[in-house]
């Protein structure tokens, strides 16, 4: 069965790309796979734990302190309109309640 053309072209491209290491071409894939396995099993976890510890320390000591006022400012921007709206709604409600009580007590025509 003929080899698919894309595979032939890919193999040729691979040969061209790695022509600098032609002398080790036969065991180059095994070397790459071995190095990749070592990286995945040992180097990457070690790097990750180290970098995560460093980044956490940096965040808590420097970034968090700088971020708090900014976060608070945004909270303020959100809370301010809500506060005003709540205050206005509360005033309207009181006026309505007062008027209702007055109408009930005096039984005047003002209330319809």
């Amino acid at each position, binding site marked *: 069965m003929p080899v698919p053309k894309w595979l032939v072209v890919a193999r*040729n491209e691979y040969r061209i790309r790695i022509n600098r290491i032609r002398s080790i071409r036969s065991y180059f894939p095994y070397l790459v796979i071995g190095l990749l396995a070592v990286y995945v099993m040992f180097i990457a976890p070690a790097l990750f734990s180290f970098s995560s510890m460093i980044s956490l320390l940096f965040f808590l000591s420097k970034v968090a302190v700088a971020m708090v006022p900014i976060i608070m400012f945004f909270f303020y921007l959100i809370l301010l309109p809500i506060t005003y709206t709540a205050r206005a709604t509360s005033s309207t409600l009181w006026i309505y309640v007062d008027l209702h009580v007055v109408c009930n007590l005096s039984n005047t025509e003002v209330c319809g």
Partner: protein
Amino acid sequence: MKAVILTDKLSKYYGKGGEIKAVDELDLEVYEGETFGLLGPNGAGKTTTVRLLNCIIKPTRGTATVNGYDILKNETEVKRVTGLLAESPGLYEKLSAYEFLDFMGALYDVPNDILSERIDDLLKLFGLHDRRDYLLEGYSRGMKQKVLIASALIHDPPILFFDEPTSMLDPRAALMVKDLIKKLADSAGKTIFICSHILPIVEELCDRIGIINQGRLVAVGTVDEIIAETGTKTLEEAFIAITGGVEEKELLAWREQKGAGS
């Protein structure tokens, strides 16, 4: 004799409304086992003809059959029965000769068990076996040409097209390529189609020649027949007479007269 290349009003036009006629209604027959030379000045349509016959470009009008396969309907089959040495071929310089031939063989679906043996045979035939693992970038132009001819032979096609096979070579390499083509024609029994404007090579190698000018085939026959037809003494004179080179000669004569007068 069986015609392995047969063109029927083969035409290729370029430009708006097809004003540039690269090949115009070409009717040609090339017989099995012969070496046919297509001669013509620069821009006459030789390379376009070869590209049409190898299904690299499609004709504007007309058609052709190559080893019985129609160039419009059976492109893959045509490519399998032809080997092409292009005028300016691409060569992967970062591959060795063996790798390049292996790649070309794989593209032509040559089975692996046959391919390695054939590559070795071709490299031995062309005297490159000792340097089979050297990168092509380190090869001389003549050696590269040998590799390219080997790549045209890798799938063992019955018909070979050589487009200007010696145009970029020094005289020594040109002689070597000429000998190779001769050997292929004599011992391997291939049908060979050579395009060139170098007359001595065509004269020496070809059984029959065709002269193409401005896209039209203006003469076909053996060298002797063409010389006799034009009433000249050499192929060069016949070529100039057919392709209109006489006018050039007259122009030069006028310049000479002007030079003599002043």
